[in-house]
């Protein structure tokens, strides 16, 4: 079961949601960020949460992963209330990569990825040949085997993100939650990391991630969750969800949504003020 994600066995839960939030209210201290929200994560696909800054994307992801405890409502993981599960059992089912994690200076790639085995270890059984095998496979799958001996802080941003995903993979879960996996990466490296995420999806993982870039979100996900001010505006396939009206409603953005010339997904073309070849009346119409 540990190796499901790596060997590519399809999840057996079928059509029912692996992970769902039901009537969830969550915030920091007295400030409520998300109020009475429902969402279901379909199995076997990539779900991406998008929305303007501060709309509660990361808060939702952290709530789904049990990092934040909702003041009302429940999060359900494979049919169980996540708050009632042991932390360790959650970690055996759900892998989480927080935003911009930092490794201690000098920690090697192999040692970092090995930490991913922690939920399967105990005080007496701190390391076994199974662990070594899973770690080696996780390294190979993310294409960082050659870097195993290098310190994580000596790698480039893109490589580093691959290594962190590799650690999450070594956890042996087929449900991955990634909080902005492309932060601080240039476009080429962002694409590289998202291709990796797609590989994981192809091998049977259910992925939930938060992304900023709308076009990358449209290209790489099968299910978009669009948020605004702590609630969900729309959810569904990018082709059905991404419209000029919705973008205006969610982001206050004036944009044109066209067919992607190199793919079968929509492409968002933002309309700013300068160098736009629409006449002024058309721009005013958009406003």
């Amino acid at each position, binding site marked *: 079961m540990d190796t499901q994600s790596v060997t590519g066995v399809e999840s057996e839960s079928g059509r029912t949601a692996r992970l769902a939030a039901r009537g969830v209210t969550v915030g*920091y*201290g007295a400030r409520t960020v998300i109020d009475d929200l429902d969402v279901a994560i379909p199995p076997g696909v990539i779900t991406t949460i998008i929305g303007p800054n501060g709309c509660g994307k990361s808060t939702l992801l952290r709530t789904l*992963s*049990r*990092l934040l405890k909702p003041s009302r409502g429940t999060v359900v993981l494979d049919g169980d209330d996540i708050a009632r599960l*042991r*932390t*360790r*059992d*959650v*970690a*055996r089912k759900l*892998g*989480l*990569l*927080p935003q911009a*994690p*930092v*490794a*201690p*200076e*000098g*920690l090697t790639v*192999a*040692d*970092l990825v*090995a*930490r*991913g085995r*922690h*939920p399967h*270890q*105990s*005080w*007496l*059984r*701190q*390391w*076994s*040949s199974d*662990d*070594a095998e899973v770690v*080696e*496979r996780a*390294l*190979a*799958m*993310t*294409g960082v*085997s*050659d870097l*195993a*001996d290098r*310190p994580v802080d000596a790698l480039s941003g893109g490589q580093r993100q691959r290594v962190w995903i590799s650690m*999450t993979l070594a*956890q042996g879960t087929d449900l991955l939650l990634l909080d902005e996996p492309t932060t601080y990466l240039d476009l080429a490296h962002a694409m590289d990391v998202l*291709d990796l995420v797609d*590989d*994981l999806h192809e*091998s049977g993982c259910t992925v939930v991630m938060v992304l900023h870039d709308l076009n990358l979100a449209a290209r790489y996900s099968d299910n978009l969750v669009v948020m605004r001010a702590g609630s969900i505006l729309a959810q569904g396939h990018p082709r059905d969800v991404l419209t000029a009206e919705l973008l205006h409603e969610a982001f206050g953005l004036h944009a044109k949504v066209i067919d992607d010339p190199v793919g079968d997904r929509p492409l968002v073309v933002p309309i700013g003020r300068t160098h736009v070849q629409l006449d002024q009346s058309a721009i005013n119409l958009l406003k």
Partner: protein
Amino acid sequence: MKPGMNGTDVKPSVTPGVRLGRVSFVWRPWIVCVSLLLAAATFLVFCLSIGVGDFPIGLPQVIATIFGRGERVDEFVIMDLRMPRALAGLVVGIALGVSGALTQSIARNPLASPDVLGITGGASAVAVFLVTVSGGTAAAIVSSVGLSAAALMGGLGTGLLVYFLAWRRGIDGLRLILIGISVSAVMEALTTWLLVTADIRDVAQAQAWLVGSLDDRSWDEVQVALWGTLVLLAVVAGAAFQFKPMHLGDDVAAGLGVRYGAVRAVLLLCAVLLAGVAVSAAGPVPFVALVAPQVAMRLARCPTPPVVASALVGALLLTGADLVARTALPVSLPVGVVTAAIGGPFLVHLLVRANRR
């Protein structure tokens, strides 16, 4: 690039494991070698230190006596007169080394040591208060629980105060350090004020305590420190496994199934108590808790402070400093003077390195 397409024929260097029945652990020969060498060096300095004195005893005789095959005279001098002091050095060094390794790991910052976090300062302020303020209550406390236990309570109280002041929806390393520095400053100010206003005879006694010294330890005092340290080390060993992922940050640790709030609270409490035990046994010996984990990291080539190696470096540092303090200089000095002389420059080195990054 599809998964598994590359790297399948390249054997990555995943750390090998060792299995003994149901027990399995990571095999790191370098750390084991370094630890064994440190243990041997500590034992050597420990024996040398016992041999030094008005009645010098050679190294072979010291070792023979420790293993129960010495002469009667040697046995009396070593076991009854000198052993308490040497053992106190060992225990205090271990306690400070482990305490420093824990606080530095928890704060993810090399500057976080019990000295900086106010524990030592709090213990000192309470001790000086009890020594200098003559009168009913203070005298009653000293006579009932002893100065050492009162100092331990002072250290614990200050440690908890810093922890709760630094608490804001969790613990942030830098915030912990800044609060620790300010509380330390308040405690130092309090100590200075007590010293300035007190009777000059009490001040001398307080000053002697404040430098940190192993002079005149009795078996009773050493036994309390020894058992306290052993119990705390057992707790640390029990929690150490859950602590491993916490070097990666709270969120990652939580994602790996660690209840980091509980683990951190237990280990921070252990760190405070270990530092408190050390201060109550030898006074505030400065810098050992700061330096030992950093030296251990460099020797063991670890990215994070290794607990066992830190304990051994702490013991070696303190025992060695005590030996130097008693032999190398024309006058016999308290051990705290020597550790301060080593620790000060090392702190500067750490700050310079931190700034360069």
